[in-house]
């Protein structure tokens, strides 16, 4: 019994790390640019295909192709902000929702067109191995993904706390008008924020590739959890999204273990609703950032 619970906790934390990378990106864009990016799941998909083709065509390990997918998607993010999102910022919510939602549909269907609906997998030496500690085990690929996810989250946290650009980003998030009066260039700050968010989603894709199949609709699997984590951890709060993601991974895993394999999400959503009743602004409402 104890072993089963311990294993369920480990499984939950490991997948929670992946949820975190996706949700941190969403919350970062929302916090700074005030736009909800519905296409974040499709960026994960783009990251997966990047790593897939790096592995199959060039023989690059998915963990190494992180160094390709992240900068590539950072640039995509900067362009996305500069050429698309920037133009709808003053138009209110609806055009922004339409823009990112359309982008999500577009990316899914372009992927369908280019890559077909096949499930593409890659086998690495660590794909299906695990570290066994007594009766419990930790899957190596998932552990690596979790470790890198935590490292990237920590780097983002340090960036936001200590660098001028990071501080400017937080200032823009808190009050865009005043931050402009202080000489902060919102275009630059916004572009970097979207770029970082997409780079994180790309990282999630690359980290998933050793153990998860890539297909055009794969983004949908992760985006729902990411949105819940963003609200649960208080909109715009990076640390909140991280902690909420880990909590949700664990809740889902325990739910599957003790309620039913088709009820994992029920436990997650009950936890979500109870939190909203007690703390309407999410777990970290009131002390944003």
């Amino acid at each position, binding site marked *: 019994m104890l072993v089963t619970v311990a294993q369920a906790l480990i499984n939950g934390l490991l997948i929670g790390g992946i949820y975190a990378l996706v949700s941190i990106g969403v919350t970062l864009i929302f916090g700074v640019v005030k736009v909800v990016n519905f296409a974040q799941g499709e960026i994960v998909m783009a990251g997966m295909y990047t790593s897939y083709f790096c592995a199959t065509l060039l023989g690059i390990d998915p963990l190494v192709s992180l160094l390709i997918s992240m900068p590539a998607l950072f640039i995509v993010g900067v362009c996305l902000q500069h050429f698309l999102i920037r133009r709808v910022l003053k138009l209110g919510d609806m055009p922004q929702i339409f823009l990112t939602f359309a982008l999500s549909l577009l990316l899914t269907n372009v992927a369908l067109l280019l890559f*077909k*609906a096949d499930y593409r997998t890659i086998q690495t030496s660590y794909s299906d191995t695990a570290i066994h500690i007594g009766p419990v085990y930790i899957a190596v690929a998932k552990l690596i993904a979790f470790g890198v996810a935590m490292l990237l989250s920590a780097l983002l946290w340090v960036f936001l706390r200590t660098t001028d650009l990071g501080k400017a980003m937080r200032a823009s998030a808190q009050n865009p008008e005043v931050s402009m009066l202080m000489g902060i260039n919102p275009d630059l700050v916004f572009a970097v924020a979207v770029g970082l968010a997409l780079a994180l989603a790309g990282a999630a894709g690359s980290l998933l590739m050793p153990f998860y*199949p890539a297909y055009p609709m794969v983004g949908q699997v*992760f985006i729902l959890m990411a949105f819940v984590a963003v609200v649960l951890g208080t909109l715009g709060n990076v640390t909140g999204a991280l902690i909420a993601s880990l909590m949700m991974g664990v809740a889902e895993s325990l739910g599957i*273990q003790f309620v039913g394999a088709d009820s994992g999400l029920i436990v997650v959503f009950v936890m979500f609703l109870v939190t909203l009743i007690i703390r309407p602004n999410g777990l970290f409402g009131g002390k944003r950032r």
Partner: protein
Amino acid sequence: MGLSKNNTDKLKVGRRQVLSTTAAAGVISLFNIKHAAFAADVVNIGALYPTTGSLAQTGQGCVNATKLAIQMINDAGGIKSLGGAKLNLILSDNQSDTTVTRTETDRLISNNKLSAIHGCYASALTLIASEVAERARMPLLTGSSSDQLNAGTRHYTFTPFARASQFAEAQLKMARLVSDKPKVAVVFENTAFGTATSNGLREKAPGLGVEIVLFEPYSAGFADASPLINKIKASGADMVFPVSYLNDLILIIRSIKQAGLKVVINGGSGGFVLPDFQKSVGDLAEGLLGVAHWNHDMSPATLEVNAAYKKQYGDFIFEYSGGIVAQTFMIAAALEKAGSADPKKVHEALTQLEFTEGYAAMCPGGRVKFGPDGKNLYAYPVGVQWQKGDLVSVFPEKDAHASLIKS
């Protein structure tokens, strides 16, 4: 000067050519019209498969098999009782969609003078096509396994292969081969397909001496299979029957490997017996069990067809495609017996014939005789196992091509 004369000559020749070609074309087209009216030298066979949409890849495999079968029949001299008439394939794409299947079946039957049709891979699509074919009194042959295809007032739908209800039984009997007292975990996606299949397993398990220790529905399309695997581990099962589509199946099999769980896996039918499955999971496919209504190593005839298919398309010929080749030969035999391209006569011949040899008898047991409900009286599925990247028949013993590896 010479050059210009040359040009004029060329021009003259050109005119003559144009004139003669036009005349010839006119004669040929007259000839064609005359021939089409009598339709003496070709017999049209309709084939409905999804070559676009979500099932496109498998559907294309079905079309490839259809073309191969038609070519084999025509190369062997066509339908002799019809003066060596050749089979002419008329393809229709139902786009993996039920609504399109209805209109396409209708269009295919009413726009062409057909003798019989076959299709459509997915049972949901075949059920629709069958309804339309019944109304048009057009014989439809299919490898789809839904028991509904034999229900009600269907008279023109013929199913030469094992029914869905027989698959569960085969899966459970195979479990007994692996262990005397198998403890099985049935994990199934909570959809119509998953629930129906797993309920079939649960009903028949006690009668066949199989204990089901975990009967667990899960939400299809999960992010992580390891919580489910943890549950299987806690249940003490020594065998797992996942009823899943490809994506979940890949995750389940990988997670079982990661957990170091020693269980026998029987993935049933569908995506599990496709060459793509092996490509997706690689070495992890080794030793996994499944069930199929057809397999390429069943008989000398199937091996021959497999070799021809492999030469042309690269992969081994998968379950459904192999069945299509047999079906096409059944249609050819019916045409031969009927001595007519009239669908009603073909239907009559199909109800009377019994296939025991040649390519038409390529099914487990090698015997096809249609009962009043269109079901092959002698049909049963074969148990298969992935061995060294190939899918081999291992059950029942008389159809086994290799022995079952108990890993």
